[in-house]
């Protein structure tokens, strides 16, 4: 009778596309999780050598240092335009526009909407942390009602500056996009869902389909002035009701 042998199997480790360097994000920052997901998807699709990452101006400005693919910095808000230029020259690459909420929904509103409306064959990863992380915590277009930030010190007042903008719903009024989904990275469950959405968004490019948009609710403990786990709870309790998770379009 043969004896059972117990072998060790590594079931979770650094994806090849994720550089083996410490990142500069604050403890508990969602960007780190999202980078990891992106790297996993790139690996699984085997597109490390045909991917171009457009990093925004925002906390993820150095994303190209962490994802081991060709990387391009874009001016604040202009990542979709830069991605358009890249993709139109190299239609066979997978071009990812990685952007924060200030970048994508404030200064970059026009570029966001028009790249989506043209149906540029790119994948947009929209990291919605309801704040301007990099510049020290100012109000974002997605900041919640009554949320206190450096530039809404008395809380965001909708009567004065309106309500948080819902990017997915906005883009869902356009005809060209093929995929629109809102995810989160607050728990293992939501993270795994987010990964599936990212996979789909990237695969759409590999298959030559069209514009994919993945919004990911992400913790910014520093900008919110919270401990990381407090931030997770706040996101689930406050953000998710305003930005409901789910798929809005999958063609």
């Amino acid at each position, binding site marked *: 009778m043969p004896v059972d042998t117990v072998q060790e199997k590594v079931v979770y480790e650094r994806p090849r596309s994720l550089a083996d360097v410490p990142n*500069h*994000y*604050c*403890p508990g*920052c969602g960007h780190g999780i999202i980078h990891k997901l992106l790297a996993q998807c790139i690996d699984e699709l085997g597109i490390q050598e045909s991917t171009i990452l457009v990093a925004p101006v925002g*906390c993820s400005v150095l994303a190209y240092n962490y994802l081991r693919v060709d990387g391009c910095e874009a001016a604040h808000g202009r990542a979709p335009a830069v991605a358009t230029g890249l993709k139109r020259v190299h239609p066979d690459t997978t071009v990812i526009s990685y952007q924060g909420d200030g970048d994508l929904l404030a200064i970059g509103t026009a570029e966001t909407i028009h790249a989506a409306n043209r149906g540029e064959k790119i994948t947009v990863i929209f990291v919605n942390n309801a704040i301007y*992380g*990099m510049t020290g915590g100012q109000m974002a277009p997605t900041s919640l009602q009554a949320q206190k930030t450096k530039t809404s010190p008395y809380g965001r007042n909708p009567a004065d500056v309106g309500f948080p903008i819902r990017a997915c719903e906005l883009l869902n009024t356009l005809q060209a996009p093929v995929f629109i989904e809102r995810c989160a990275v607050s728990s293992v469950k939501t993270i795994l869902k987010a990964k599936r959405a990212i996979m789909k968004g990237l695969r759409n490019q590999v298959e030559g389909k069209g514009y994919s948009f993945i919004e990911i609710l992400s913790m910014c403990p*520093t900008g919110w002035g919270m401990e990381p786990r407090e931030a997770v709870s706040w996101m689930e309790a406050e953000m998710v009701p305003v930005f409901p998770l789910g798929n809005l379009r999958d063609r």
Partner: protein
Amino acid sequence: MSRSTVTGGDAMYVGIFFAGFGGQGIILAGRMVCLAAMGEGKHVSHIPSYGAEMRGGTANCSVVVSDEEIGSPLVPRPDVCVVMNTPSLLKFQPIVKPGGLLIWNESLIHSAPERTDIEILAVRANDIAEAAGSYRSANMVMLGALIKRRPSVASMNAVLAVLNEAVSARHRELNQVNRKALAGGYEAA
């Protein structure tokens, strides 16, 4: 429009660099030096570092105290360097001016500075602060040590006098502890 002359006398000038991580009260310590020195009629400037690291919790600041109008508020080669944690020691030990003073937090840093051309002062800031009532006053311990070694910067009385002004209302209940910590640092230096 404005005309003046500079003579070039032998004025007092101390450039101080404070370094640590966020939450250690680095910026506050720098501001208190300024306020105290201002109170004693000195020229002062204070500038936080906001250089390469945007994230990740480091916090540094440069302070100048002088008898004369201050030129650059930056202190590339400090006369005095106060370091509160290991990465700061590693990074900033080399920039202290030869003959300058390096004060390091022995509570959190486990290997001592190596330079031999500067004055080195170890302070168990967190321990002394803890003894005074809270580890959060470690910055005050360092400040106490600093003014002991460099009395020309500001007197203890001047520092005590600005404590209420400098500390935001939210944290003022800590000032009792802060006073003790300042004294503790002063003694330890």
